[in-house]
């Protein structure tokens, strides 16, 4: 009887919480899991760039610039974590309020943020997490009734665009489907305005990124493509490989196809150019670069089956649709090495809660359940898109998530789980909205 009363009291207290209190509760839980922000080598490089005000375009320079400002207020990753968490949760709240009461919207937003595959990436200071945060906030803003907020939403989406090379694939469906200069505008006029907006946005993003970056880094799928094509082609002699790569400076003399197959199996794209197993030497002049580019394009043209087989394999692994292990489903390191900690003068350790949730719960979920396998969300997203989707918000979300995921097909990236984060987030959010709509229509 007593315990029933207590549980009823607790239930009443929880039920009586204001939307802001519920959101604060969710945000506190997020911060407790992630505090003061997990980082990888990418994050550390960006922080160093931010501190030295020397941005490269190897990572998004806009994010480094943002970090430069925040690092001058509080040193380290904390403010970046708070920013991405607040944008994400605030955006989700605003988005879900179009479909739910404020209190319920706050609970559902908390559930989405704290959903392990979403939380695991949102806790890390990565461009992927920042992009998701700006996307969610941007989507919520472009749905607002006030035009200035909608235009602000475009700015947020433009920032999201600047955070990954392929973010355009996530942003375009959102802008095309959701953005309206004036509600009720005719389709042709609306599309014309959207076209102008898209061109201006992409132009602005490129200009800002180029303006900020003082060091240019050539990022190209070329090297991994060449290695992948050689690996996936029928057996080739060293002479045939050399013949296919005229003017390309190779780092090894013999066993070229074996080496290519080894590198593909190792699944670390950067090993193709760096380390003792590398396949190529870095080109020293433009002539070598153009020779490599020509060889790459010729290889693709000559071996389209190998190209699609290689990319299909990489993409399946990115989706976690093979039997292989997932790459980095849960990232909960503060830095990757003590040297990095010393370099950025930032070191932290796990609290008991972080240890239990991160290592015991999330790692177990990743190893023993399919919860972190992106293909599940791709399938759910496709099914929802085909069978349930009847409104433009969920359609935009699903198109954005699935389109973004598809944009990885031509890029032979390392199959990190974080690359699927936006698809997982958008599918989970769309599923929550669709579930609410169905439940309401039935009740």
């Amino acid at each position: 009887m007593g315990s029933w009363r207590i549980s009823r009291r607790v239930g009443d207290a929880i039920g009586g919480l204001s939307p802001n209190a519920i959101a604060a509760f969710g945000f506190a839980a997020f911060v407790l899991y992630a505090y003061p922000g997990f980082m990888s080598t990418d994050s550390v490089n960006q922080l160093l760039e931010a501190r030295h005000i020397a941005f490269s375009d190897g990572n998004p320079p806009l994010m480094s610039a943002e970090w430069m400002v925040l690092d001058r207020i509080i040193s380290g990753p904390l403010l970046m974590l708070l920013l991405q968490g607040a944008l994400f949760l605030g955006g989700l709240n605003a988005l879900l309020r179009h479909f739910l009461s404020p209190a319920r919207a706050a609970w559902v937003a908390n559930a989405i943020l704290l959903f392990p595959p979403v939380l695991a990436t949102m806790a890390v200071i990565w461009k992927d997490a920042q992009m998701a945060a700006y996307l969610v906030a941007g989507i919520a803003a472009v749905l607002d009734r006030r035009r200035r907020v909608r235009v602000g939403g475009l700015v947020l989406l433009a920032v999201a665009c600047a955070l990954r090379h392929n973010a355009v694939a996530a942003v375009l469906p959102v802008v095309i489907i959701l953005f309206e200069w004036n509600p009720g505008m005719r389709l042709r006029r609306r599309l014309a305005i959207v076209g102008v907006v898209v061109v201006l946005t992409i132009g602005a993003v490129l200009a800002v990124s180029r303006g900020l970056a003082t060091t240019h880094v050539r990022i190209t799928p070329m090297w991994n493509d060449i290695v992948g094509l050689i690996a996936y082609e029928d057996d080739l002699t060293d002479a045939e490989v050399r013949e296919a790569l005229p003017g390309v400076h190779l780092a090894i003399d013999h066993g070229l196809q074996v080496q290519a197959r080894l590198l593909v199996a190792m699944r670390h794209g950067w090993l193709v150019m760096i380390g003792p197993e590398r396949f190529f030497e870095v080109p020293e002049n433009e002539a070598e670069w153009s020779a490599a580019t020509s060889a790459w394009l010729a290889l693709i043209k000559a071996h389209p089956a190998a190209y699609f087989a290689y990319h299909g394999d990489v993409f399946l692994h990115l989706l976690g649709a093979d039997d292989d292990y997932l790459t980095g489903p849960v990232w909960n390191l503060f830095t990757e090495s003590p040297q990095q900690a010393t370099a950025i003068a930032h070191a932290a350790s796990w609290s008991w809660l972080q240890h239990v949730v991160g290592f015991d719960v999330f790692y177990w979920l990743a190893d023993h359940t399919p919860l972190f396998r992106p293909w599940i969300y791709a399938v759910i997203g496709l099914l929802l898109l085909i069978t349930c989707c009847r409104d433009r918000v969920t359609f935009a979300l699903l198109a954005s998530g699935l389109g973004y995921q598809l944009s990885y097909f031509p890029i032979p990236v390392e199959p990190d789980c974080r690359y699927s984060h936006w698809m997982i987030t958008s599918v989970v959010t769309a599923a929550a909205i669709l579930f609410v709509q169905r439940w309401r229509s039935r009740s």
Partner: protein
Amino acid sequence: MKPRTILIVGWVVFLLYAYPGYLGPGAADQLIDARTGQFTDWNPVMMTEVWRLGWRFIDGPSVMLFLQSSLLLAGAYQLLRQLLVERTSAYLAVAILWFPAVIASTAVIAPEPMAASLLVAGTAALCATARAWKVVGLALFVAAGGMTTAALVAALPIVLAFLGLGVLRAVAAWATVVIVSLGLAYVLVDDRTERPALERAMHDIAGTLHFAPPLPSDQIATLLDGCPLAAPPSELQQRANRAYPKPGRYIAGASRLFEHVDAEHVNTVIAARDRLVRAQPRAYLRHRLHVWTSELGFTKHWHPLIESFVPARVDGAQLSYLSSHSLTQRVLLAPVRWLSRTALFRPHLYLAIAVILGIWAVVRRHRDAAVLLASGLAYELALMFTAGATPQWFDSEWLVVACLLGAVMVFFGELEPRHERIGEQAALGAADHDRVSHG
């Protein structure tokens, strides 16, 4: 602005200055103890226990920083709210937290700043009318006593004045606080080394020998019998004169007093100190007075500001705690650094103010202010016998905070009768006006 907004903004600005917290001298050891759950008696175990509870949710010193700053801010606000309107109380509580001499101490993760915060919060809780809050207040005093025993002395006037149960019951409640606090401090230790007691004993021996008249070597030999001495008794007093008051020189260097002191010598050294103190009480008192004057800032070598997040002797990367100052922090730190070289960071200034204000408060019957000032003075006096060998600015934080709170209370207490008089006269004037107009 609403009072809550004022407090939150004030707290955030404090965090901009202090985040993620400056490790005090023993805090690195405490952080390791908190993580491993194996508590040594090198530092106050009550603080390590609080840290371990905080570590369940957030690792590192920031959780302690959040706790001690929020306790101080909330406690000061609640205390002032009993005398002033909410918004003024909020502004004044923030002003106290931002006061350079307070912000510099509250930013340091050490037992004394935590004790000051617990004392403020405990006093506020004890002033509440609900019994549950009074119990919370006593519990906070237990925790404060676990941080430093001087806090137990500081708690006495507050419990006597604010518990509201009569003198005898208040004394009994205070005695319970003392017993529970000391008991917990004993029980919570896993690895008992007596290191702090040993360090104090060696400091007392060196100090007493330093201030004592020349003693015959056979008397010194008798008094220090069993101690692992580094020199014959005849040389010991000369060595004490050279080494005192630098604790590092008692066991190392050419003028060291002791050879390696291991676990079996601890009780011997402590017993020798007790014999020496009984034999030379005046010298011992002069030594303790010297310690106290050092605590009060009457010393040339006074570096009150801790500016490094991790002590120099600690490898931050190995401790998994490293941080650097942001531009904002450097800007906020600059004026505090400058002020730290002024009298504002000398505890004797606050001692003098507390004495003057205390007398004023007693004469003018500002009871709450008088109690707080008495508590601050009692705490500072207790440091004469509880302070260690290395005086720190933040040791005196409770005196500073009590002084500021007392000053605010006295100031507004003096203003109140004038306001009342103005109010009465205005009412009389309005009544006259009505009479004239109706007549």
